[in-house]
């Protein structure tokens, strides 16, 4: 999954609230809140940047975390969000991944 591309799903609502990110899935009205690290991945999920690069550039540099552990945590996080239908994951870049 580390070379996968990730993009925010289209039928979601989202807003930054302080250091967290609020997300609501229109499908079932479930609300999610992401902490600062999760928010950094979410913001970078443009469909064009591989997950490994997001982790290296957004997490390792900004949060000073170990790269291999950060990548493992990010992969689990991405899998969780994908299972909830609020993040799309693909082995190739995702067109229209930016924004809504």
């Amino acid at each position, binding site marked *: 999954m580390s070379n996968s591309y990730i993009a925010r799903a*289209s*039928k*979601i*609502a*989202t*807003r*930054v*609230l*302080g250091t*967290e990110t*609020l997300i*609501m899935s*229109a499908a079932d*009205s*479930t*609300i*999610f*809140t*992401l902490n600062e690290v*999760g928010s950094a991945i979410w913001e970078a999920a443009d469909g064009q940047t591989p997950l490994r690069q997001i982790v290296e550039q957004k997490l390792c540099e900004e949060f000073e975390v170990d790269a291999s552990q950060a990548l493992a945590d990010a992969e689990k*996080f991405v899998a*969780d*969000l994908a299972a*909830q239908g609020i993040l799309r994951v693909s082995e190739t870049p995702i067109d229209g991944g930016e*924004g*809504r």
Partner: protein
Amino acid sequence: MKTSNLLDDVAQRALDLGVPLTAHLDVTYRCNERCVHCYLNHDDRGEMALSEIKNVLRQLAEAGTFFLVISGGEPFVRKDVFEILQYARDLTFSVKLKTNGILIREKEAERLRDLGIEGVQISVYSHRPEVHDAITKVKGSLARTIRAITYLRSRGLKVTVANVLMQGNMYDYHGVRDLALRLGAHFTIDPTITPHLEGDASVVAKRIPTHELQTVFRDSDLVGDVAEFSALAPAADAAVMESFPCSAGHTAIYISPYAEVFPCVAFPFKVGDLRSQSFSEIWQDSPALQQVRSIRVKDLTTCSGCGHVAGCTRCPGLAYMEGNMRGPSSADCAKSFVRTGVWSAGMVEKFASSAALVQISPAAS
């Protein structure tokens, strides 16, 4: 990642951060129905153009608004309503729509689904056309509204049937609830009739009488555990007395079609004007909004000493329309009384000031 029901936590966080988490935007007061209990003037007195609405939406997104209610009047009488909704969704708001549904057909239902609209609330006054149509004053309106709900549900949209109770339909809520169930919609009931926003309070005479409200409040299908629902709230502690009376003006805001800003749709105390001020100016600096925000439960003139205060649904807007935003709202006093059987402090006060004095003479010897 947290996935439990976080609404309370999120609301508290928004309050701590000073964020207008919820905004209600009426895009028009024009309407294709003429409901007998409506609190609005339906003339267009200069409603915002699409470009103005987009500007307001951008400002709300920047301020942190997440939940957006788009309503009216009837929003679908605006020909640009889908451009408004598209823009709101592009700004990633969670959008709920309030409508009578009359103008929603298959094509509109599909567009709403494709936009990812969070939910649609539709008013239904009765399951009987002769009652519903008499309230809306539009023949055939119930059939068209039901058709809209069917189209929306078949496209997977969440629909809530809102049943406003008044004297003309107070025996029909079972029928409306069954109708909602058949259509796969949620059901909500509201016995509050709001005075006209321009001051005419005569419409409140349509409120259902106390004894009928009691029947509603004793219906376990509506309120769940009747004993629990009817229980008097525990005595107010310091936390209750220091709390805010409601979210209006704190984490919630209302914007009229004329770009005026109010704490809530039911609280016609103007706090700013988006045609001459930015939203952040109003949200951060409006003296009127600061006045609303300064009120704690302990500051409520009558209610702070009322036994219902910890459990009352008191609406500051209704209180304001009765003359004092710090005072009681008689509609909510009535609800607390009907729910529990115990008079509210507001009722006692009103009775004491209106009761005729009776001279008691010593009995003749």
